[in-house]
């Protein structure tokens, strides 16, 4: 019996690369996203190339009951869940438009947190499983250029941290993924420094390795760990003057 992974927000480049990584290792895939028919061709491609079972599920991260509907669809409780739900959103639009800011906050924090809590309960009852949350280095400290998104991710990171703390000793693990810059359609057109920019496949490899090694917090590119240590350590009177 092959192991199975449920991927929430499966349409993103990181999620798809992660799906292929797990499939290459023989895992069964359950891909949940809004408008699952969008992934039909990718589903077929993965099934043909890698010979694993792949199912698609309609899933809206902002609908509180959506996770229960997905779970009802599944043949069994998955071994691992990867939450790649997220919405970057334009910071300036979020400053002007409260509805848009709300959407960013709910997509990156409220939706993922509520759904993972439900899954955590089921994993805890079973006494095994791993929950992987894709958060962001933007959540480590609020910056002018994306602090609405950053605040939501900060909340998500704190949620994952607390969940990990609560579940310690139950057999259920929690992994926080902090990818840094990733070369995906979400950031298309932005000028990213190549030395700090990972490919979606790099993130996928890191996630799979973290699951196998039961890691708590991972940065995809190691230098981000040091960069963020410096960013966190800057005194606020200095930090508030920076622009990056």
């Amino acid at each position: 019996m092959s192991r199975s992974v449920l991927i929430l927000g499966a349409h993103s480049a990181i999620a798809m690369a992660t799906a292929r990584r797990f499939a290459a290792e023989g895992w069964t895939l359950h891909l949940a996203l809004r408008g699952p028919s969008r992934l039909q061709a990718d589903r077929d491609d993965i099934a043909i190339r890698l010979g694993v079972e792949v199912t698609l599920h309609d899933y809206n991260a902002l609908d509180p009951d959506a996770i229960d509907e997905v779970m009802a669809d599944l043949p069994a409780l998955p071994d691992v869940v990867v939450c790649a739900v997220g919405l970057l959103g334009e910071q300036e639009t979020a400053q002007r438009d409260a509805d848009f800011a709300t959407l960013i906050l709910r997509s990156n924090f409220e939706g993922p947190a509520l759904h993972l809590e439900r899954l955590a309960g089921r994993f805890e009852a079973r006494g095994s499983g791993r929950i992987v949350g894709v958060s962001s280095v933007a959540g480590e400290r609020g910056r002018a250029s994306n602090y609405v998104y950053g605040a939501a991710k900060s909340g998500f990171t704190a949620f994952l941290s607390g969940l990990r703390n609560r579940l310690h000793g139950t057999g259920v693990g929690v992994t926080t993924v902090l990818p840094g810059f990733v070369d995906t359609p979400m950031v298309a057109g932005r000028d990213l420094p190549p030395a700090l920019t990972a490919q979606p496949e790099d993130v996928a490899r890191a996630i799979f390795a973290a699951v196998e090694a039961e890691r708590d917090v991972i940065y995809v590119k190691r230098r981000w760990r040091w960069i963020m240590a410096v960013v966190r350590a800057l005194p606020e009177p200095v930090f508030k003057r920076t622009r990056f």
Partner: protein
Amino acid sequence: MTLTGWGRYARYPAPLSQPAPGDLASALAGGPVIARGAGRSYGDAAISLRRTVGTGRLNRMIAFDEAEGLLVAESGVTLGEIVEVFLPRGWFPMVTPGTKTVTLGGAIASDVHGKNHHRDGAFRASVAWFDLLGPDGTTQRCSGQENAELFDWTLGGMGLTGIVTRAAIRLRRVESGWIRQTTLPCADLDAVMRAFDTHASATYSVAWIDCLARGPHRGRALLMLGEHAGRAEIGARAPFPPARRTRTLPVDLPSGLLNGWTARAFNAAYWRRGKAAAGSRLVDWDGFFYPLDAILGWNRAYGRKGFVQFQCALPDAGARVGLSALLDAIARSGTGSFLAVLKRMGVAEGAFSFPMKGYTLALDFPATRRALQLIDRLDRIVLDHGGRFYLAKDARMTAETLHAADPRAARLREMRARSGLSDAFRSVQSERLAL
């Protein structure tokens, strides 16, 4: 961004987009485009100065019919990916060129041929159907039954009829990934031509020819025959060996390194080695079909100036005299080709496909002035003997030469004008060759 063909001879500042499958139709708006797959055609066939549309994101396999061996895939999928997925399940492409890095779309546009052309025909023989994105942004299913004329022109049509988005190809059943290879040294041109006919029933046949040997040795060659090995033949070997490890040529070698002197030495050594290794042995699929793929970026061996390929076909009637004249001209010039490949071809098919019943000779030269002058002379010889040229290799021919060699070129141009394709699909090559 700078685009070149695999020969890296002519370079063009040309914008390349890689649209998602759903955005392909909108990529057509705003002037002539040309599709570009893996960029493995040697010249300027997959470059448009206006807009070059990459098929890199059309990379999904859609369906596989296990009973028929029929694979449906998007056009950016490469033959290498197909081998990787399906060889372990006992399937191999029916027709493959000498590199597995080509995409399905590229293989269709060039109607590529392989070592089995004399028996099985060109790539078209394996194509059940494809979907073609036309100038109006809609996609048409094309097959031998449906839109048959467009199907015929597109196979070998160098991307000038539209953009192939999906294709269905038939694979062949194989018992193993091993090839029983037989090497036959042939003392001169007559001997190798006779040997091709003697071994006409071989599944695969191709000859390396020493294009610098003169006098009694002119045209000496190593004829290589191949058959898919059955389970009983392979002994304890793994039935489906994986692709060979690749090595990368990390830098451009100095431009002058591959020259007449080194070519002569290489050819002489290759001949001696081949003669010594004559006979039968088992080789894995990657070594038999794709020897050059083992060195990623081998095109950099010719240095920054790049190289040009020359590949012609000569009809049976003019083949012997024509090949002799070509070899004489090359030997006289001293501008040697490292890899000269001679191959027997089967019947001609299709509206604009390259192969014709007879022989094909493929050569590569460093892109020097002397070599380019030599190739102009080779063009003339091919014209005089009723031959024609492989556009997937071409980077420098004139429109006059093409149209003199091949009356079908004018028919393609006329068909394109009539169907509104001339304004929608253009490459640097199609403009150079007045297609």
